């Protein structure tokens, strides 16, 4: 069984990411379960998706310390989900920061340096990238989720080929943004290729 936790902020496209991974796995004959945050928390709040691939699956929620992969769409939100990661698991995290209102109001701090060292402490198999900036280069910052999926697609853990994942993503993006998303996905693939040694496990 493969357990993937995807964390981020409402509106960043975690739902699409979970769905695409699940659909790619179904095409390869796997059972899947995903669990989503839908409703009030979607409005600017923290959101988490759980994705499980394998055989004879039960529930969709991944227990603590059981995630093989933590895919974080926003720096603080990656750290928030860190308790889900298993020892030796992989973290792929966007370093882009989305400031919660509590920080702008001065009632909370945002310590990026400490957050990054928390991630480094959790695992050696850590990939940090500014996926939002990379997506802007590809043509639209909103495709950061697809950049991150591109990175994910190169992990040795995944039971399908990057092309399978791209096929699944394509079903969910509008033809208008297809080119941008393809460029975003390829950028992600390039980043994981450069980090092959880090994640080889």
């Amino acid at each position, binding site marked *: 069984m493969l357990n993937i936790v995807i964390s981020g*902020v*409402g509106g960043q496209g975690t739902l699409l990411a*979970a*769905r695409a991974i*699940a*659909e790619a796995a*179904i095409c390869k004959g*796997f*059972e*899947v*379960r*995903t*669990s*989503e*945050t*839908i*409703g*009030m*928390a*979607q*409005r*600017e*709040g*923290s959101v988490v998706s759980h994705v499980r691939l394998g055989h004879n699956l*039960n*529930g*969709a*929620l991944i*227990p*603590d*310390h059981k995630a093989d992969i933590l895919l974080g769409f926003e720096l*603080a*939100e990656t*750290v*928030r989900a*860190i*308790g889900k990661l298993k020892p030796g698991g992989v973290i792929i995290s966007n370093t882009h920061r*989305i*400031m*919660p*209102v*509590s*920080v*702008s*109001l*001065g*009632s*909370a*701090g*945002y*310590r990026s340096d*400490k*957050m990054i*060292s*928390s991630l480094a*402490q*959790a695992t050696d198999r850590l990939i940090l990238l500014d996926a939002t900036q990379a997506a802007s280069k590809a043509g639209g*910052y909103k495709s950061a989720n697809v950049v991150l999926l591109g990175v994910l697609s190169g992990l040795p853990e995944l039971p399908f080929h990057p092309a399978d994942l791209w096929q699944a993503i394509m079903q969910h993006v509008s033809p208008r943004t297809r080119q941008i998303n393809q460029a975003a996905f390829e950028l992600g693939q390039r980043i994981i290729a450069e980090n092959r040694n880090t994640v080889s496990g």
Partner: protein
Amino acid sequence: MQKVLLMGNEAIARGAIEAGVMVATAYPGTPSTEVFSTLADLAPEYGFYAEWSVNEKVALEVAAGAAYTGARAMVSMKQMGLNVASDALMSLAYIGVKGGLVLVVADDPGPQSSQTEQDTRKFAAFAGVPVFDPATPQEAKDMVQAAFELSEKFGLPVILRPTTRVSHVSQDITLGDVKKLERSCHFQRDPRWVILPKLAYKQHIWLDRVQAEVAEEFNDSPFNRLSLKGKAGIVTSGVAYNYVLEACQELKLEPSLLKIGTPYPLPPKPALEMLASCGQVLVIEEQEAVVEDQLIKLAWQNRLGTAISGKHDSYVPREGELSVDKVKTVLISYFNLPRDDMPEMDVAPLPLRAPGLCAGCPHRASFLAFKELMRRDDVVFTGDIGCYTLGAEPPLEMLDTCLCMGAGITLAVGMSKIEPERKHVAFIGDSTFFHSGVPGLIDAVYNNANIVVVVLDNGTTAMTGHQPHPGTARTATGVNGAVLDPGEIARSCGVKFVREVDPYLVSEMKTCAREALEFDGPRFIVARRACVLQADSLRAYSIDAELCTGCELCIKKLGCPAIVKNQVVQISAACAGCGVCARICPSQAICEVV
């Protein structure tokens, strides 16, 4: 066999279509909404009737009317929606139905998007209506067919009760064939449909008798499975079944296991077999002790001395949702196993990221207009259910109450009668106004309440994902023939002060608010501006660093997620272009991006 990825709610909708549903109704509410939105999308293709109803009581009654004629009907809602529909449900259980009627009532343990953690299985037992409790989306889909058949066999409405972790879980689903029911539906006049007291007494006897018959029927249901292994057993229901399986695997436990998919009425046969062969039984179910209470009763009636544990001896929490980790803790304590705690990691402090109003949300502008008109202690702001409930968060802090759908207006009426020296302003969304705000408004007029009602009209039911309502141009499947206007409703109810205003126009909105506060009797303002997530995009704003004095008024007053402080105050790409910050900036430092 063809397998597709479906969310639990989509799987339930698919199940309804496979079962030949002829009428579908609903009022949106997390985590139930997608059951009906999926049905609405598919209604034209499969040729059945689908409506977003004005509230859950109406939705149930419309579905019941269809079922009286012999049609199969499905109505869906969240758990608190059933409170609104309960008047209809309690009588309907006595009267019964002809065509199958399935209520999908989605529970929200946690809760994630609700005011209560009430357990619909308990409601089902109270009403005397059978309930199915699925563990997975696939099982939920399969239960729909069984629920329709049961409903028609016994002439009773039946509840399917998914929880968030079924409704919002996606799974690879095996699709079945779609059946087109060949039946001619016709309402036949009969005294059985008119519930006079004498009939109520007779039907009460019938309803009580049928409970035992349904329980017998459930003895052989494929959704209840017994596997006897040892003298210690676990009984579990709904999603908790998944957590029990996984926790037992991890702890290498192999207890006897009774998995219940029909928690009320509890099937006596597998339950008694379990009790008779086990010396001790632990009941693991989410929320209330529904299965546990029935097991205790069965054991007592049958003079069985099995030790039954669960909620009553505090092994299993009643509050919050269960998980594999929580169930593991329960099992470790119940079976006296060694703990396997992982060392706590030292993690960086994280900023709170609570849900909040979107950048450009028109509600923020409406709240702002009222915020500074009076000393905060001289006015009470009552609120309601919707996105605008988030106006309670800092820095706006503009809601003093939130109780249930429609209660903002009526709480204000009650308060105004006790503290006439204070001002009372009730905020309510457009969809909530149609749902249950109208009777409160009529009450305020009838009883001459000195309150201001502000309808935050964003032209949609935003929080649940933008469903249409009677004030929008669309219905679930087509065009609304008569768009209702909240302002016109207020006028026709006899409200003398009725104004419509665009909240983005800060000074006009403020003038309107001031005039309303100075007026006597019930006053009504429609603050109309489309939900920013649905509106055409406007030109974004930016801060001119030369002009900005760094007073941070924009941050402190608005709490807009697009205004961020990174050494200096900046406007991020999240800006939706509402321009409210530009209108309140004392240095005119915020301008449209050209």
